[in-house]
């Protein structure tokens, strides 16, 4: 055989490998094909292709694996079992940008299903490699790495702690300053996932100066970014009074009230959640929010949305009213009671009704004046009716009982 024929044979093989891997990747991106691919045993075929010499084949194989793992739980477990992860992670350091993106995509797809899979990713040293990727120049790589870290940190506190221990937080805060919006979004969402578990993690995030950067991004026109920013701020402030105070000191509040009229409903919901978490702690914090006109905005927000989106707003009114009778009066004056009674009559889900009832109870509990307001809104018969209703849940009944007692005592 001549040299040319030998080389031709190799080239043909390479071409067919590349074609196969590209086809599989395209097929895998459509969910209906994945079952059949799985039955055809695509996992064991893709695994040697991941170790291929040609970088583009590796990359495309990684992409295909990512799509497969993304789709279902057991495929992700199969990825872990086949020991593909260590190789992926070791090559994360060395290869080119598209490979890094594909590898980060695979890690993300594996980690998103359950804590055990995330633990497997962490155990192979995935977190350190991803943190190294976070300091890469290419924004696409940063985005993919941050997303993967976010999914790992989402599940529980120990995984978040391992992410933090690898030094991810300063890098994520740097990512917040990137010009590209997508990177900012993902960095904010990852910070939000890290902060949500324990106060210590939130404290670590705050100490790296994240709040100032997050506060600057509040008036950004991009809706998805705003969602993540507000979610991150609310996760930080929910843990303790000092953290909530730090969030307030960043002077977000008059600006955040504007975002309650944003076009995107999830931005509005997250702003409301942030307000609720801040208001929970002390009367002074509630005072700050009432003083910047938050009550009116929240009551209007409750009027504009439906269903589960109302829940943070309702709870926020309840928390504010619970602190003191002056704040409860402020809630009443902001037309809170008619709005809450509307919510009570319109909503069908029990937990929302329970929350509404609790809020009404908090408003009316302080003095006979307050109770009178609640009574004149014709809420007492409704509360009784809810209590008598046999199909309402235990929680709802318990929540109804205490306010009604208080009201009746005052009347």
């Amino acid at each position, binding site marked *: 055989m001549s040299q040319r024929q030998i080389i031709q044979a190799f080239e043909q093989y390479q071409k067919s490998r590349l074609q196969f891997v590209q086809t599989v990747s395209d097929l895998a991106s459509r969910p209906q094909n994945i079952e059949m691919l799985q039955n055809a045993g695509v996992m064991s075929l893709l695994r040697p292709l991941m170790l291929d010499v040609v970088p583009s084949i590796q990359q495309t194989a990684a992409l295909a694996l990512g799509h497969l793992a993304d789709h279902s739980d057991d495929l992700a477990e199969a990825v872990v079992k086949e020991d593909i992860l260590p190789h992926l992670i070791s090559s994360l350091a060395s290869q080119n940008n598209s490979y890094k993106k594909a590898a980060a995509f695979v890690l993300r797809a594996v980690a998103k299903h359950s804590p055990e899979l995330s633990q497997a990713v962490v155990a192979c040293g995935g977190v350190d490699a991803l943190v190294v990727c976070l300091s890469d120049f290419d924004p696409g790589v940063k985005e993919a790495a941050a997303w993967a870290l976010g999914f790992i940190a989402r599940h529980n506190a120990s995984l978040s702690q391992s992410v933090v221990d690898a030094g991810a937080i300063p890098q994520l805060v740097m990512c917040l300053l990137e010009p590209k919006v997508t990177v900012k979004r993902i960095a904010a969402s990852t910070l939000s996932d890290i902060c949500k578990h324990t106060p210590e993690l939130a404290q670590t995030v705050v100490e790296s100066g994240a709040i100032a950067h997050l506060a600057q991004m509040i008036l950004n026109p991009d809706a998805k970014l705003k969602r993540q920013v507000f979610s991150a701020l609310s996760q930080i402030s929910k843990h303790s009074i000092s953290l909530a105070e730090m969030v307030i000191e960043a002077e977000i509040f008059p600006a955040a*009230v*504007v975002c309650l009229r944003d*076009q995107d409903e999830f931005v509005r919901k997250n702003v409301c959640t942030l307000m609720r978490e801040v208001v929970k702690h002390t009367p002074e914090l509630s005072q700050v929010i009432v*003083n910047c*006109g938050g009550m*009116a905005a929240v009551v209007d927000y409750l009027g504009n949305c439906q269903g589960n989106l109302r829940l943070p707003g309702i709870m926020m009114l309840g928390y504010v009213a619970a602190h003191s009778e002056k704040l409860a*009066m*402020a809630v009443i*004056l*902001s037309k809170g009671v008619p709005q809450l009674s509307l919510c009570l009559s319109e909503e069908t889900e029990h937990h929302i009704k329970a929350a509404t009832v609790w809020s009404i109870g908090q408003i009316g509990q302080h003095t006979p004046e307050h109770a009178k307001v609640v009574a004149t809104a014709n809420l007492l018969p409704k509360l009784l009716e809810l209590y008598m209703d046999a199909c309402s849940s235990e929680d709802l009944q318990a929540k109804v009982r205490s306010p009604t007692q208080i009201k009746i005592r005052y009347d």
Partner: protein
Amino acid sequence: MAELMKIETQVELFIEEILHRHNQAEENRKRENQAAIRIQSWFRACRVRAYLSHLHKKAVIIQKIWRGFTARARFRQMVKEAYFIMKMNFYEEMAVRIQRRWRGFFVRKYTHNFYARKRYLRGVLVNNEFVRRDLDELEELQRREKNCLELVKEQTAKVYLAHRSHHLLSTKQCPGVFNPPFKPAPHEMEQLLRQVKYQPPTRLAPGGGTRVLGMPSPAALSVPWTRESPWIKTRRSCCSPRFTLPPIASKKQQGLLREPGEVWEQHVNCPDLTLRLQTSYTHLEEAQNHLQQLQPAKFYRRTIRTGNMLHNQGLNSDAFTKTAYAKKFIL
């Protein structure tokens, strides 16, 4: 002797008597001793008793006097204390009155200030109103912005479409799709097509786009956005640097270069034209004069075809002819 005997018997009797008495006395001695002792002790007891009662009485007197003394002193002390306590009560009562007034004043003024609370709640209401109004305005603004953006996007899309479908423009011969004869006025697309100046696609097709002459309202409404769109130019000056120069091998004729048979054809065809036009006596001469005047007319051919000779006179400038001839000689 008898008396002696009597005395003797008396002595015997006497001795018997003495013995008897002695025996009696002996018998009674103890009893009498006991009695005497008893009497004596009783007497002594009486004496002692009298003494003791005397002592008691005296002691009682002393104690009585002492107790009276002590009690009076104590009483004096009690009176003093009671007086003191009464004074203190009085003072305290007065102090309580002062404190009560003060506390009421202080609490009403500083802690639970009713008017401050009222003012605060009114302030909250007013603030709420302001915030509601501001938020409404902002929302309105945002909505308008969004609508504007959408309109601009729509408009740019339409312009792009017009740019790409220049071939649908209606000509004199053949009315286009957007200009059907049975409608009183052409469709807006037709207007757009007419406005969009056609340019043959250059290599940088998306960059060097068309110039739109006099674009309608979106350009006026939202200047900052339209700068990004390549197809709408509000100023002509920014257009020219973007155009590529026309290719050198263009088929435009310069100046007066005419094809060989053209002049001959003109001369030949001319009599036909004059025949068509009118039949005046000197018409031939007039026509020939006219022909000579229109000498540099390469438009002449076209004018023959369209039947309009006169309107092209303005285009014949001497400068044009002279430069053309000059170039010819230089070449």
